[in-house]
């Protein structure tokens, strides 16, 4: 019990570098622009003032979130916008269920958990201003450190998706590749579905491998020493989804969320290493 208590305290009392949260914040803002900016353009829905208002708040809040200005407030506002889309509007003219789709709710929930992190303490205007204040008053340089426990919520969100996605696929028709054959007909071959043995076997392999990998990722991504193997495999799986089926921003969102699994100090050190001044040339 003592071991478990200590591990739990490691999670809830975690104080670490805020750079990985800052990277998540910036990449999340770009992802949200890619997913929602076009359909939230105010002129597209002038007949619906509430939707116009949501669009205006979206543009302002995602911009301030991206640059890290009033970051906490910005992230809360972006979460509010996404919640309004999911529960207030549910869809748009071209797709009445666009905002209740599980990809959209994944954006909302990930954003909500990110809003609980001190993501504005690094790589932000807020930090720039804090540094300025410290210089003016002669105080110490503010550290890029904060309570990063909420990154486990983002990790849990990703794991939840993998878990239920795998449970949903634990059916004979997915494991034997039949569901993938359906997808191949829909997106690629139409009525000309190949019925060669190699093709049926490939679909069965891909179906089973997807479910097995998702189940492994549920637990494995929480174990740092597995990252070197599991993260490339997970990224490869999402890259294949992106290339083979129309998943829109889902792939980039999932890969971005992998940052939440990395120990904050690892990301901090990696950025330091990347930005280290070049060694002088001997000549």
């Amino acid at each position, binding site marked *: 019990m003592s071991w478990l208590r200590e591990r739990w305290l490691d999670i809830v*009392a975690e104080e670490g570098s805020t750079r990985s949260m800052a990277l998540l914040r910036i990449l999340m803002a770009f992802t949200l622009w890619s997913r929602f900016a076009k359909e939230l353009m105010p002129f597209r829905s002038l007949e619906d003032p509430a939707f116009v208002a949501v669009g205006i708040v979206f543009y302002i809040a995602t911009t301030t979130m991206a640059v890290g200005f009033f970051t906490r407030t910005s992230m809360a506002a972006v979460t509010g916008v996404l919640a309004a889309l999911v529960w207030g509007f549910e869809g748009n003219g071209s797709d009445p269920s666009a905002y209740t789709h599980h990809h959209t709710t994944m954006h909302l929930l990930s954003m909500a958990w990110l809003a609980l992190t001190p993501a504005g303490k690094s790589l932000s205007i807020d930090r720039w201003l804090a540094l300025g204040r410290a210089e003016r008053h002669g105080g110490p340089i503010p550290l890029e450190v904060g309570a990063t426990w909420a990154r486990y919520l983002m990790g849990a969100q990703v794991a939840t998706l993998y878990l239920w996605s795998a449970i*949903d696929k634990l059916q004979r*028709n997915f494991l034997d590749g*039949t569901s993938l054959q359906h997808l191949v007909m829909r997106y690629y071959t139409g009525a000309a579905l190949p019925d060669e043995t190699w093709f049926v076997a490939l679909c069965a392999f891909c179906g089973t491998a997807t479910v097995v990998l998702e189940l492994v990722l549920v637990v494995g991504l929480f174990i740092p020493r597995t990252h070197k193997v599991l993260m490339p495999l997970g990224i490869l799986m999402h890259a294949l989804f992106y290339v083979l089926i129309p998943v829109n921003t889902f792939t980039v969102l999932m890969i971005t969320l992998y940052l939440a699994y990395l120990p904050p100090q690892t990301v901090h050190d990696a950025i330091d290493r990347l930005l280290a001044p070049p060694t002088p040339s001997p000549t």
Partner: protein
Amino acid sequence: MKRRLDGALVLRTVLLVSLVAYMQAGSFLRLGLDIKEPWYTKSWRMYSNRGSDECALTVYQLHDDGSRTELERWWEHLGAETVFLAPHAKAKGDRLKIGRRLCRALPDTQLSVVARCGKKGGFRKPTKTADVDVCNPRHLIRDAIQKVRP
């Protein structure tokens, strides 16, 4: 040194546990208990049944001696340069539509078309039409009579 669980850590613990439970709720209700989740939860459903309304077609060329051979790359006769441009068959009826287009593209041939349509959870049995010449109007009339017959 033993760390203490102060108020802030208790609050974080409560938040973590309750929010992780919330994440599971919608999917557990929908996928675990087969109950429609309430509006305030969300469930994850991946590609269940997508594409299950499509049919795969196999086209045969029928010969006078009663034998048949599969017509390879039949979609090319409909102008599709690659398999990725092949037509879609969304229902059994499309078997005849595509068959008739092939008959027009290949005059003086006898063709049969077998459809293997998807369904929720798998494929339906292939249609028993491997010997039915879709280019022969008599067969089409017979099919039509069978459709209207009670």
